[in-house]
């Protein structure tokens, strides 16, 4: 299979879904309605495209693992796109351990979710369109993963934003969905604004350096990620020549992109609302892949962050805050998808915090494991919602474990994984906590994240017990599970349970070649993990997080199975009730933004509109009116009488001649 094993063919992974998307869109345009062509062709096209992509990704994984030596070679190829003076734009593909990891995650999870989608959207009139959008998203995400430089990643960054917008608003006749997709788009605009400025700022300071650098490395492009480790120091010197804080500013501007895309404070409010989209979308885009793109981007431009300590501290602080705030909000949610959305946000906070404290590989490892178990949790919630006739409120569920046995088991696996109880989430979260604990500057990160881990365990098991245990509290007739939906769940349960232990801490062997997960990087200085597998379990940090996770589980069991009246009692206590109000109102972020928009922004906009109407339009219309008025006055001169013209001509010539004489004398 030379086609698959040639690593230079990897770019085609992104092209397959693009072709599928084009075919679906064109066939819809050519044949009009969906039913002229059988609608399964759309899903068959998309799923086939993703499946072939997965084969490519597996071969790429094999290529990575079979590399001799510890250092993993990167393959980069750039195609010249356009140039202006010394400025060149390139599009290409970059294969290294990070992109191969993401390729595998995206194609594998996409494939399972697309199969699941067939079951979930079977009766939806927009079935074919939905698969077209899915293919578009896959193209954008894979293109983002394979990007070689900041310009290219920015293009695909926007493309995943568009796919996300289209898919959140897929049921756009529902007002809440229409509002949610616009909100997601606008929030991401704010972040992308900063991101673009960061790219331009970086280019501004690095522009003189690229000419000679690209002369030495002809395979690279301008603003290539692979050049950043070499160039970051030089760029910083260049920036320092202007102002020392410019480099920090660039790093933080670049960070605004991930802040919006990965739902970090304060640009996070779109993610919970994005749950208005169909559940497979929540699983694929808003849990496993797109929201993780922010963390991926931080990983790609990491040398810029490591050169600015203050930027790293900001990243760590924002990640930690997000983790804590999102976890507290998740405690109070009754909508199963909203609870999962806040848990996603909290876990993204873990990843960003890991990046901020310098635990680069731990952050990416958590991204990797989180993608599997969070996608699975969302798919489980979709299965539950589907079975309960589109009911999302957990207060109207309960006791579903007998009716939905496979969903119940896989959800339990997912909860154990995210709560850090031995399944995959434990290993990656343990790595982050370990890294934070060992860095004396970041003790606050460690303590906050450790507490958040307990909260995570509590609110996840809260959703689990409310949904699957106790008595059924709803009115809807509960359907049986759909075989198209539980199949992917069962497959996803395996990596959710085991992939952490398979990758963590193992040096050498099958996965040792993915250098990612065997060691830490603190500010680019590698630090070996102290413990092997069993050692990690028994180490103080490992056993502490196990203990915290178990406490969360037990408390959730007490609150929601043994004594369901306890939460209400706690809610009625004075301090707890105000805390509960704060959490259930999402820390008032939405209200603050709404007040800001209503009071400040709209007032400013009205003022601007007034200035536009009065000032700008006044000047423009005034000029027009002045010209018109003078025209009306002057046209009287054009009487059409030749004799008048001659008289004017004659006297003008005489006057000019006299003047000429006057000046000459």
């Amino acid at each position, binding site marked *: 299979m030379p086609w698959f094993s040639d690593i230079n063919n990897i770019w085609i992974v992104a092209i397959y879904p693009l072709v599928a998307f084009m075919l679906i869109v064109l066939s819809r345009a050519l044949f009009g309605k969906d039913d002229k062509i059988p609608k399964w062709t759309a899903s068959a096209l998309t799923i086939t495209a993703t499946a072939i992509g997965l084969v490519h990704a597996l071969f790429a994984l094999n290529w990575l693992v079979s590399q001799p030596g510890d250092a993993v070679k990167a393959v980069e190829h750039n195609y010249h796109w356009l140039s202006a003076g010394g400025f060149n734009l390139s599009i290409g593909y970059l294969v290294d351990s990070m992109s191969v990891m993401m390729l595998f995650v995206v194609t594998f999870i996409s494939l399972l979710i697309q199969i699941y989608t067939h079951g979930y959207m079977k009766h939806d009139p927009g079935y074919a369109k939905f698969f077209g959008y899915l293919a578009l998203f896959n193209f954008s995400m894979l293109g983002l993963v394979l990007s070689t430089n900041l310009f290219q990643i920015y293009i695909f960054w926007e493309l995943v934003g568009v796919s996300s917008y289209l898919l959140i608003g897929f049921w756009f006749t529902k007002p809440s969905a229409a509002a949610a997709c616009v909100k997601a788009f606008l929030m991401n605009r704010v972040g992308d604004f900063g991101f673009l400025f960061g790219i331009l700022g970086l280019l501004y300071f690095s522009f003189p350096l690229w000419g000679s650098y690209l002369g030495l490395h002809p395979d690279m492009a301008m603003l290539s990620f692979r050049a950043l480790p070499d160039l970051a120091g030089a760029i910083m010197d260049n920036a320092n020549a202007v102002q020392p804080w410019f480099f920090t500013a660039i790093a933080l501007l670049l960070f605004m992109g991930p802040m919006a895309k990965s739902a970090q404070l304060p640009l996070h409010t779109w993610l919970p609302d994005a749950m208005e989209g169909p559940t497979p979308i929540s699983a694929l885009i808003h849990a496993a892949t797109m929201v993780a793109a922010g963390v991926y981007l931080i990983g790609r431009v990491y040398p810029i962050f490591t050169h600015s300590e203050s930027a790293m501290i900001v990243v760590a602080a924002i990640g930690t805050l997000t983790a804590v705030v999102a976890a507290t909000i998740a405690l109070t949610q009754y909508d199963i998808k909203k609870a999962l959305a806040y848990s996603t946000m909290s876990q993204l906070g873990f990843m960003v915090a890991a990046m901020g404290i310098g635990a680069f590989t731990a952050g990416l490892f958590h991204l990797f494991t989180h993608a599997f178990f969070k996608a699975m949790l969302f798919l489980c919630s979709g299965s539950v919602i589907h079975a309960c006739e589109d009911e999302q409120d957990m207060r109207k569920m309960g006791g579903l474990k007998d009716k939905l046995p496979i969903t119940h088991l896989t959800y339990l696996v997912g909860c154990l994984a995210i709560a850090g109880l031995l399944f995959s989430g434990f290993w990656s979260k343990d790595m982050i906590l370990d890294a934070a604990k060992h860095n004396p500057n970041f003790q606050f990160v460690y303590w906050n994240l450790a507490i958040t881990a307990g909260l995570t365990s509590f609110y996840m098991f809260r959703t689990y017990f409310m949904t699957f245990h106790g008595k059924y509290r709803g009115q809807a007739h509960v359907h049986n599970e759909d075989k198209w939906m539980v199949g992917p769940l069962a497959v996803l349960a395996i990596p959710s349970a085991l992939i952490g232990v398979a990758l963590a801490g193992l040096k050498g062997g099958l996965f040792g070649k993915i250098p990612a997960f065997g060691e830490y990087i603190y500010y680019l200085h590698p630090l070996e993990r102290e413990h092997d597998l069993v050692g990690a379990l028994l180490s103080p940090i490992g056993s502490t997080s196990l203990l915290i996770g178990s406490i969360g589980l037990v408390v959730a069991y007490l609150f929601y199975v043994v004594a369901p009246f306890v939460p209400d009692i706690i809610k009625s206590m004075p301090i707890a009730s105000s805390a509960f109000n704060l959490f259930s109102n999402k820390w008032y972020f939405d209200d603050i933004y709404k007040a800001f928009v209503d009071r400040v922004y709209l007032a400013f906009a009205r003022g601007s509109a007034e200035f536009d109407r009065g000032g700008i339009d006044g000047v423009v219309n005034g000029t027009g009116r002045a010209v018109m008025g003078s025209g009306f006055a002057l*046209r009287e001169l*054009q*009487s*059409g*009488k*030749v*004799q008048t013209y*001659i*008289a004017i001509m*004659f006297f003008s010539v005489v006057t000019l001649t006299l003047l000429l004489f006057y000046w000459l004398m």
Partner: protein
Amino acid sequence: MPDFITHVGLTHYVVLAAILFVIGLTGVLTSRNVVRVLLAVELMLSAVTINLVAFNNYLHTGNGLLGQIFAIFVLTVSAAEASVGLAIVIALYRARATADMEDYTLLKW
């Protein structure tokens, strides 16, 4: 007897030409009839011709008859011009049924 009566010089011719020119101009500006305007234009042309002859005679004495030849050319051209002018006048009269300058205001705004 003052000198300017006994001796006729260049000044006399130039003054005569200027007087003729102004009479012609006054005719052009004040006449209502197109034919009169045409006549007045001929008068202005004659004034210029007189200048040509006079200047040649007094300032270019050794230089042959250049001014006189010019004058004959001007007369020839003015004859042709008069015929074209009259043709235009007839065309105008046919179009507007009047020879009054006041009524020729087609180019008015």
